[in-house]
């Protein structure tokens, strides 16, 4: 449901720009160009972003007329993401340096304290020495932890409190108290003249280290989108003026003719004009077997041309390609919320101020009721509570798991629209499955041919006859003959007899193909064939009798065959605890036959589209959580009505738009994969939420000193800092475990 918006401006690199005045001049000039909806200059990187449909040349001309230079900056999304990755890497290295510097100061100070136990200020020499250390620590706070303080201050001005607030308050309080000890030690009792500079430095160092590790771990959560982006080619071989030229992918236009050679990726969506090849579509559909492509077949961007050279027409380019839309959909879903996280979201909103209050209350309790040195205890408790509390773990618990889970789904051809669908897929009671195109192939095929002589010859005759017919059943017969490379002849005296069949002359023989009525009309005896025909009809086949020169020569059965993997998928879904019901517009006979073969108990046949939706609604009224699987335009209302609608990817755009989960594979295994994945993701989210809640509900009381009566010790702020750094890292790492998810089918 979430509609993610991506900026798609045309970006130009500017020259001669150096002040705010230039910005106004350029923006004003470019905004006058026809088709420009907005123009923005970024002075820091000297770029101009133009939004709208204006020609790049016109924009460059407008910039030139304003007295500056401009050139088109070509940057695909992949390049932009690479740039973003570089920025992230820079941030990671920066955090590591900060951490190293802070720990470089903090560790020796801590070691000094542990070895010598001289961390109090009682003499002028100690005052001086610790004063110097205080200034060094201040440098750590400014250079390594300055971002915490500026963030905290800015957030505070906005009546907002973040993790920065806690870190800044904790480290700032420890440093400030220590500096008071250094400057005016005589104002404090001797037992309270302990300094905590090492705590400030260590906390900054540990939290920076934790953030650095978190950045690296988070980088892995978006691996799925990166993989999809890798599928996008950067250039294409386009036919221009009769010559094949390599062009950047951005320059390919709809209607262009492109050449793709063996081993190359298909750059855009299109239709084959010339050539034959096998195309590996596994990266998009999960189907491992390469698909034969010939003239008229469609190609999808990102798939791999295996062995032949293809000339094709570009039908969809840029963000219109199916791959681009999949990437968009995945990114949308990755950022969506999951209902289960509502509580965590509510708590996140008030978490930091509540922790501040708890820290203050705990500090006052220790000051008023605690043992001596009360001031020191008060400070340790205050700092530890502020530092150990981690809103990040709570805030990251859900998004990280959703990001990895949704990405993992994309790898297996399961595109989840949003977090809600992901969660609801876990708890379905019943799965309502459309028969045609979901349980069956969706296109009639010749299934049986029984003849008292040469079956192939009989097939050749009836296929030759059916060439003149437009009936779907005829298409199945002709296709079967083509598959067997049978040479067909043109029929003479062809006649289609309504509700009976067809007749005609093939090579001098009179051929009839039709139902019982046609045979009776032509006074042809069915003999023993009727029993065999009845059996086939029971199995859901459409049976036709074939007669040559007045004699019945055999029977031909056509059916929409059950998908090879339907049985296994139904078994998987049943094992997952789902009850399967079939919906179809077909007659009861063929529906019951399919249901029997697949072990489906309940069948709703001869339905109109609105009936399908009604059945879903009826089940929901009974308190059932209903999933609906379909592919056709007539399934859209039912898909939309269901708690979770699963659209088979090969289906129509309407069905896909109505669905919560799109399956790139035309297989029910995709539904089972989606259910397994959603359960794994929800399980992971629950682990994360539990971990975050437990961490905070245990950590905060421990930092407040509840274990002091047992242990006789307070939690060191340094340990609290380490725990805080580890908590969010743990959440991200646990979410990353989802990357190893494999559906039971693939295990």
């Amino acid at each position: 449901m979430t509609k993610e918006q991506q900026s798609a401006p045309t970006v130009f690199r500017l020259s001669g720009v150096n002040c705010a005045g230039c910005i106004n001049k350029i923006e004003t000039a470019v905004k006058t160009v026809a088709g420009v909806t907005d123009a923005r200059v970024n002075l820091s990187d000297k770029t101009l972003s133009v939004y709208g449909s204006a020609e790049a040349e016109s924009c460059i001309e407008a910039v030139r007329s304003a007295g500056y230079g401009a050139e088109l900056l070509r940057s695909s999304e992949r390049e932009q993401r690479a740039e973003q990755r570089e920025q992230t890497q820079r941030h990671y290295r920066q955090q590591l340096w900060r951490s190293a510097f802070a720990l470089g100061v903090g560790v020796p100070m801590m070691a000094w304290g542990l070895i010598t136990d001289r961390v109090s200020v009682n003499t002028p020499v100690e005052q001086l020495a610790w004063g110097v250390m205080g200034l060094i620590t201040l440098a750590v706070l400014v250079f390594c932890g300055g971002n915490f303080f500026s963030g905290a201050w800015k957030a505070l001005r906005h009546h907002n409190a973040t993790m920065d607030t806690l870190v800044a308050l904790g480290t700032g309080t420890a440093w400030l108290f220590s500096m008071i000890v250094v400057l005016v030690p005589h104002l404090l009792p001797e037992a309270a003249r302990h300094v905590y500079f090492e705590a400030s430095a260590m906390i900054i160092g540990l939290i920076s280290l934790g953030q650095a590790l978190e950045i690296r771990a988070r980088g892995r959560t978006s691996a799925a989108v990166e993989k999809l982006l890798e599928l996008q080619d950067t250039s294409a071989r386009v036919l221009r003026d009769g010559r094949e030229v390599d062009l950047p992918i951005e320059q390919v236009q709809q209607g262009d003719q492109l050449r793709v050679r063996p081993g190359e990726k298909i750059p855009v969506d299109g239709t084959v004009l010339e050539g034959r090849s096998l195309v590996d579509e596994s990266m998009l559909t999960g189907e491992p077997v390469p698909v034969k492509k010939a003239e008229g077949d469609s190609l999808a961007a990102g798939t791999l041309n295996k062995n032949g050279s293809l000339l094709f027409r570009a039908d969809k380019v840029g963000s219109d390609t199916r791959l681009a839309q999949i990437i968009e959909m995945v990114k949308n879903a990755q950022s969506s919320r999951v209902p289960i996280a509502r509580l965590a979201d509510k708590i996140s909103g008030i978490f930091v101020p509540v922790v501040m209050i708890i820290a203050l209350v705990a500090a006052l309790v220790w000051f008023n009721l605690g043992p001596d040195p009360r001031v020191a205890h008060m400070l340790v408790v205050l700092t530890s509570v502020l530092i150990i509390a981690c809103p990040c773990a709570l805030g990251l618990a859900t998004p990280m798991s959703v990001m990895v889970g949704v990405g993992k789904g994309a790898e297996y051809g399961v595109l989840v629209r949003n977090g809600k669908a992901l969660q609801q897929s876990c708890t379905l009671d019943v799965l309502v499955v459309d028969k045609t195109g979901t349980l069956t192939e969706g296109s009639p095929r010749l299934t049986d041919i029984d003849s008292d002589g040469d079956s192939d010859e009989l097939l050749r005759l009836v296929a030759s006859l059916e060439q003149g017919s437009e009936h779907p059943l005829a298409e199945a017969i002709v296709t079967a003959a083509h598959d067997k490379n049978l040479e067909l002849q043109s029929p003479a005296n062809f006649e289609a007899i309504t509700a009976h069949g067809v007749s005609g002359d093939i090579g001098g023989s009179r051929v009839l193909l039709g139902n019982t009525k046609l045979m009776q009309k032509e006074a042809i005896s069915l003999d023993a064939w009727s029993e065999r025909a009845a059996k086939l009809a029971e199995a859901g086949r459409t049976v036709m009798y074939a007669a040559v020169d007045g004699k019945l020569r055999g029977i031909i059965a056509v059916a929409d065959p059950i998908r090879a993997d339907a049985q296994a998928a139904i078994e998987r879904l049943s094992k997952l605890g789902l009850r399967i019901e079939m919906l179809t517009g077909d007659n009861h006979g063929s529906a019951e036959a399919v249901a029997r073969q697949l072990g489906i108990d309940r069948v709703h046949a001869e339905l109109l589209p609105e009936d399908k939706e009604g059945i879903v609604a009826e089940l929901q009224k009974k308190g059932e959580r209903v999933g609906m699987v379909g592919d056709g335009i007539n399934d859209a209302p039912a898909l939309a009505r269901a708690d979770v609608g699963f659209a088979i990817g090969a289906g129509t755009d309407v069905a896909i738009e109505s669905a919560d989960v799109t399956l790139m594979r035309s297989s029910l295994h995709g539904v089972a994969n989606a259910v397994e994945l959603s359960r794994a993701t929800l399980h992971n989210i629950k682990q994360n939420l539990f971990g975050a809640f437990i961490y905070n509900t245990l950590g905060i009381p421990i930092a407040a000193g509840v274990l002091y009566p047992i242990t006789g010790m307070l939690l060191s702020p340094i340990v609290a800092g380490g725990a805080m750094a580890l908590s969010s890292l743990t959440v991200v790492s646990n979410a990353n475990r989802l990357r190893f998810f494999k559906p039971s089918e693939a295990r």
Partner: protein
Amino acid sequence: MAEVLVNIVGVLMILAVIWWFWLGPKRSTSKATPSTDNLQILVKDGVYEPDLIRLPAGRTATLHFHREDPSPCSEWVLFPDLEVSAQLALNQDTLVEIPKAEPGEYPFNCQMQMYRGTLILE
């Protein structure tokens, strides 16, 4: 005397926290823009600036989010009630299309709800 002072300061600080974060008047940098305009929101130092945006209801609008904060926390902006989200590129403008919607308050935030703002459609 010192004890009393410390307690008074402590209690005052608790009250200050309650007042500042929950009870007191919120001072936001609000901006109202005509529907044809594009508003830039800076994402930096834990806050959106402006964090309160007023737009006319019943029309689509475009917001430019300019993210300068490299921390992963600021990477996404979500408008949960409008079912809109966007991944914000670092040091660049990212356009976020706001669909037509009923008048009302629509909170927006980062994934971790640390950055928070409100969009008012009126």
